[in-house]
């Protein structure tokens, strides 16, 4: 590299001072701008909080419940799938496959919420309503068919097993699932007829008094779960893959089986990382707007039923705020909702980040390869 041309050194020093000052100013300015979000939200909600308008807060509570319900539904679906996928791809999957599958799954995160919401609200929801029994059966049937695949594999001949190794199962189980879904869809109407006396929805209504809304927590759970899976998966996978291999190997050397080593050592060691992954997922689920707006029915209900709709704070902001005149009570109320979202996600994310940093330090102490 050619040495920098030396011009007058005083000018260079001056330039350096000015540039440093500018960068500092710019950097601090950007950070302040980010801080301004919080300040603005608090400032705009002060009128409500000062008056202590309990009526307004009462209006907000079904929205808060709806937000939580939607997020819970999404996490119920996303956590098992995302963690399972993370465990598998960090510990079982072949390296070659992993380098392909991980970006593919992370790509799921890039699919815009408005597209997922459209599919969920206009395509999936009516289908599930017409085929409720099939949909519910699929939820039970898919894990069973995975276990069935495992059993069959163990009974299979060695040659077949070598052809279809566990380390590639993430890929070759896909056609298996397609086949199984087809079987389930074919069987479900028949089962519904024989076991459930014709119509599951009538049964739910007559025996349990349960209502069924087209756009409900089940649909939101699946759609938003789909959107949340990649963020949980990605972080949890990182945490598991970063567990120093010495730990697992040590455990196995002491006589633990691979599964024991995983369950008792790797998962425990990566526990905080997984926790922070789930927190990040929760933050995303709470703030997701378009999916809930399009797939939830927007009914401001206090109901825990998975077959009833809800209305979330984010969705309420999106449809009502453009019509609310600034300064009105609705306006302040919706901004309060935004503040709640802001604080909640900020806290959850900070918690996750702190836990993750602590974890990283711990690995370093254990003497991982990092």
């Amino acid at each position, binding site marked *: 590299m050619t040495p920098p041309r030396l011009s007058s050194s005083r000018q260079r020093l001056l330039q350096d001072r000015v540039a440093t000052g500018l960068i500092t100013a710019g950097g601090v300015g950007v950070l302040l701008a980010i801080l301004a979000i919080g300040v603005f939200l608090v400032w705009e909600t002060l009128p409500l909080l000062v008056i202590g308008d309990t009526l307004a807060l009462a209006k907000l509570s*079904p929205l808060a419940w709806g937000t939580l319900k939607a997020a819970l539904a999404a996490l119920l679906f996303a956590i098992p799938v995302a963690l399972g996928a993370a465990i598998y791809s960090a510990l079982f999957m072949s390296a070659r496959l992993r380098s392909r599958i991980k970006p593919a799954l992370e790509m799921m995160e890039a699919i815009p919420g408005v597209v997922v919401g459209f599919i969920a609200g*206009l395509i999936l*929801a*009516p289908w599930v*309503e*017409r085929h409720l029994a099939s949909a519910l059966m699929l939820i039970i049937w898919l894990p069973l068919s995975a276990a069935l695949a495992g059993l069959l594999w163990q009974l299979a001949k060695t040659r077949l097993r070598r052809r279809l190794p566990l380390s590639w199962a993430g890929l070759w189980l896909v056609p298996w699932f397609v086949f199984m879904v087809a079987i389930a869809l074919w069987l479900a109407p028949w089962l519904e007829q024989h076991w459930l006396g014709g119509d599951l*929805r*009538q049964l739910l*209504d*007559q025996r349990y008094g349960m*209502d*069924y*809304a*087209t*756009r409900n927590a089940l649909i939101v759970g699946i759609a938003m779960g789909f959107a949340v899976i990649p963020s949980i998966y990605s972080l949890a996978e990182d945490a598991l893959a970063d567990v120093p291999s010495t730990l697992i190997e040590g455990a196995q050397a002491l006589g633990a089986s691979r599964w024991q080593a995983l369950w008792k050592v790797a998962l425990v060691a990566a526990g905080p990382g997984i926790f922070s992954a789930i927190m990040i997922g929760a933050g995303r689920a709470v703030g997701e707007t378009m999916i809930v*707006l399009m797939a939830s*029915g*927007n*009914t*401001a*209900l206090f109901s825990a039923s998975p077959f*009833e*709709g809800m*209305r979330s704070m984010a969705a309420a902001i999106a*449809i*009502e705020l*453009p*019509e*609310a005149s600034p300064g009105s009570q609705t306006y302040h109320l919706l901004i309060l909702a935004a503040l709640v979202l802001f604080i909640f996600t900020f806290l959850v994310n900070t918690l996750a980040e702190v836990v993750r940093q602590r974890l990283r330090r711990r690995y370093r102490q254990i003497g991982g390869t990092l």
Partner: protein
Amino acid sequence: MNTRLTTLLTTFLTDRGSPFAIRHILLRYAAITLLLATPLAWGQSAPISGTLGAVGSDTMAGLMLRWGESLTTRYPDVKLQFQASGSASAPTALVAGTTRLGPMSRPMTSEERDNFIERYGYPLLELKVARDALIVVVHRHNPLRALTRQQVDAIFSTSRACGAEAPIRRWEQLPATRDWSFGRIALHGRNLASGTHGLFQERALCGGYFRNDISEHPGSSAVVAAVGESANAMGYAGFNHLTPAVHALSLYNDGGTAIPPDEAAIQSGDYPLSRYLYLYVNLPPGETLPPAEQALISLIMSDEGQQIARASGFVPLTPSVLNAQQRW
């Protein structure tokens, strides 16, 4: 002949010095364009041009856009720019003078009229441009055909301000749907900010309160689509969103006859939830409108304009109403 003229023009335009190649080509192109454009320009008598601005009803967005499209096909230089931000935004914009045209899906309140008179000293010109209605829809296979006002209220409201005795929650509670074994009635409607929501509340619920388990959709077409997909659903929407996927119910009028929401009943106003759509125009007395505005209004009042209203799903005006507004 064309080329000769072009060369002539080109040499004329580049008389000083030798023409550069690019300049040459450009000028030749310009000359050809000129030659081609001239007969076209001559062919049209008194061209009208300009951008029309209109601010107002969300319901009428599709209709206004289609009228604008048709206007542009007639007069290529006229463009209609429409800002659909709800009927309530029209009076504000008219008073502020940012637009001369305010489409509204309801008549102006006297307060809104007074505001305008206070500012300008003369009243707005009110034009009826089409007829519309709110419809109550059920799934296309639902045997239900008609509802009384009290029944509608008992189904959609908690207040029952129209005088029903008990709320109606299940299909079995209605005589016509005793065998429609789908349990509870799933309700669909519009979100709070929409005019449809407000109008239904005022006219069908007698000003009462909506139930809180109504699915609130961000658009009327979403309501119709949702009802068309589920056999246990009922919803309310604008008439122009009616599709064969749903069935629009007849409503009993005060005389006890069931009136179906068809074109004739909406046009005559017999259907209880029908309404006019309006266009408010800022026109000082004794003056005439600029040609572009004039062109839009005569398009709306023409047979073609009313056909466009029908194509958008609304109901054309009766000839008598059109005649009464004939001077426009």
